[in-house]
């Protein structure tokens, strides 16, 4: 079990997730595949509702029971297929080897439990610590994220948004995970605190050689933090590659749109620029390419045939009929 290809530290293959909403079926994730090397960082970028959070939750197998209709595909972590192991086995991995930082710090913490208890919980389960040891380690962890140990016994409502997010991060990092999934860890925060939190994640990541999947809207953060980027649209990866490939040579019209057609990594591209039109309704996806209704370059074929993800060069992949034609 210990031997595996280090470039395939985490390997997601053909992940599909559907939700039910009333009588409608919501196609949230449609055939997503990617690999993540040990210690590297993958940025998942895309609009709200593109299915990024669902991908993250599907990897950890924490999709909401009541609304999830199906979840198929395989997730291989360190050579082990974790998408099919028993839930009890999965519990040993969650929080210990793979952990997650959630998007909204306001609701991610249990309001009736002190922050130190919430951090210590994972340590007690995964590292067999006693209550006292867990508490001590949790306080240390709090101080690592810049919160005074005096406030360990306070409740989440006594903390500001930024501090809550630090608690969430402390919780995720408490057991030195090998893979961290950070779901927009800075979106809910003030600009000044954003930088601090990000620096903190980066520091801890380097110190512990943690691999990371970073879900974000912020292209500045991607440029600073990520090795690879996957652009997600309507539950699909539409373009994927390393930082240079995506920033210097974006191929997909959607990626172009996102980057505001400034393909220069040295220039500041802080935010995703808005792309004209609205994302498709995930319960009624268009027939051909999902992006075709918004695509400035769409042709007849784009509206009728769904494109495959094609390999360009190096680690660069794209899903676009026009690019396919150019290559030929």
């Amino acid at each position, binding site marked *: 079990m210990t031997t595996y290809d280090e470039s395939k530290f985490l390997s997601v293959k053909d992940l599909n997730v559907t939700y039910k909403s009333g009588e409608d079926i919501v196609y949230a994730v449609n055939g997503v595949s990617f690999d993540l090397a040990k210690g590297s960082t993958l940025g998942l970028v895309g609009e709200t509702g593109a299915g990024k959070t669902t991908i993250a*939750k599907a990897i*950890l197998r*924490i999709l*909401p029971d*009541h609304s999830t209709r199906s979840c198929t595909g395989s997730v291989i972590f360190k050579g082990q297929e974790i998408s099919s192991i028993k*839930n*009890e086995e999965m*519990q*040993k*991995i*969650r*929080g*210990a080897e793979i*952990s*997650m930082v*959630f998007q*909204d710090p306001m*609701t*991610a*913490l*249990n*309001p*009736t*439990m002190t922050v130190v208890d919430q951090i210590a*919980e*994972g340590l007690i*389960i*995964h590292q067999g610590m006693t209550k006292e040891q867990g508490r001590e380690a949790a306080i240390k962890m709090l101080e690592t994220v810049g919160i005074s140990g005096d406030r360990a016994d306070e*409740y989440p*409502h*006594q903390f*500001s948004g930024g501090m809550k997010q630090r608690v*969430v991060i402390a*919780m*995720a990092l408490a057991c030195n995970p090998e893979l961290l999934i950070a779901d927009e860890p800075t979106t809910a925060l003030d600009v000044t605190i954003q930088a601090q939190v990000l620096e903190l994640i980066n520091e801890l990541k380097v110190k512990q050689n943690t691999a990371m999947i970073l879900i974000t809207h912020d292209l500045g953060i991607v440029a600073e933090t990520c090795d690879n980027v996957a652009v997600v649209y309507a539950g699909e990866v539409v373009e994927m590659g390393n930082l240079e490939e995506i920033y210097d040579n974006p191929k997909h019209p959607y990626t172009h749109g996102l980057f505001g057609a400034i393909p220069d990594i040295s220039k500041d591209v802080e935010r995703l620029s808005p792309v004209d039109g609205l994302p498709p309704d995930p319960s009624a996806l268009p027939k051909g390419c999902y992006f075709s209704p918004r695509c400035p370059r769409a042709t007849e074929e784009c509206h009728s045939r769904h494109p495959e993800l094609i390999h360009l060069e190096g680690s660069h992949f794209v899903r676009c009929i026009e690019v396919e034609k150019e290559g030929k």
Partner: protein
Amino acid sequence: MGRYILKRLIQMIPILLIVAILIFLLMSFVPGDPVQIILGDQATEMQIEEARHNLGLDKPFVQRLVDYLVGILHLDFGKSYLLGTPVSQELLTRFPRTLLIALLCIVFTVIFGIPIGIRCALRADKLEDRVWMFVTLLLSSMPGFWLALMLVLLFSVRLGWLPSNGIGGWKYFVLPVFANSLGSLAGIARQTRASMLEVIRSDFVTTARSKGLSERDITWKHALPNAMIPIITILGARFGMLLGGTTITESVFSIPGIGLYMINGINNRDYPIVQGCVIYIAFTFSIMMLITDLIYAFVDPRIKAQYAGPAKAKKKAEATA
């Protein structure tokens, strides 16, 4: 916390005083003359006059009210017109019976209602959940007194296992407690389920799951304490009501508790009894609401913070800033 309790207790005084005045006023509007009821139809004019004088009913209204209020301050609720016994003493004799039934009922409600609710929430929309939800809906659609009668019919009349009325050993309490709790048990089960479902689907439960907690720990350590917050209020109000006398049950099973005392008082136009019961009920209900709020604060730290008082909250705010 101590200051908060004191403040609440002080706030209760004007409410209870107004309740006393209102009920006194209200009783004076009730059709039917108590003296007539005590003496019966054959009484002469003279006898009625005398009885009026003896009961103090010939004094002016305002003076009677003032006398009554002064009496209350000395915990004297007056004497029953009909029996001549002091109301406060009768209340004290009856209180332990009502308290015992109330306690048994609330315990029964909690130990069955809450687990059923949790179980259903964890198996939402499965067959077991649906069956329980139908049974509890049926139970909460039954009139309590009818359920009581049906239990009497089955267990006393047909099977002869349990006594159908009066008080005595433990056997006498089985039917009243059952009859009195099944409805609220069903209600609590349904509300626990709804509350649990809402909590189970909240973000912090997903966080707990992402930490690798077992489903059991998630349910008991994270979901349940949060789901219990609204249930506590409902249970508190229910217990307060029970302490006020389980009017209907006491009536069906002829249990000499406070509820039956009041009903008899009303039927006999025995105003001191009615007034005494009403003030007692308002008092116990308010106390129960206070206790509920305190338990609430114990479970929900957000509310505890509100009670800490403005001074402390301000200090906290400064410290955070």
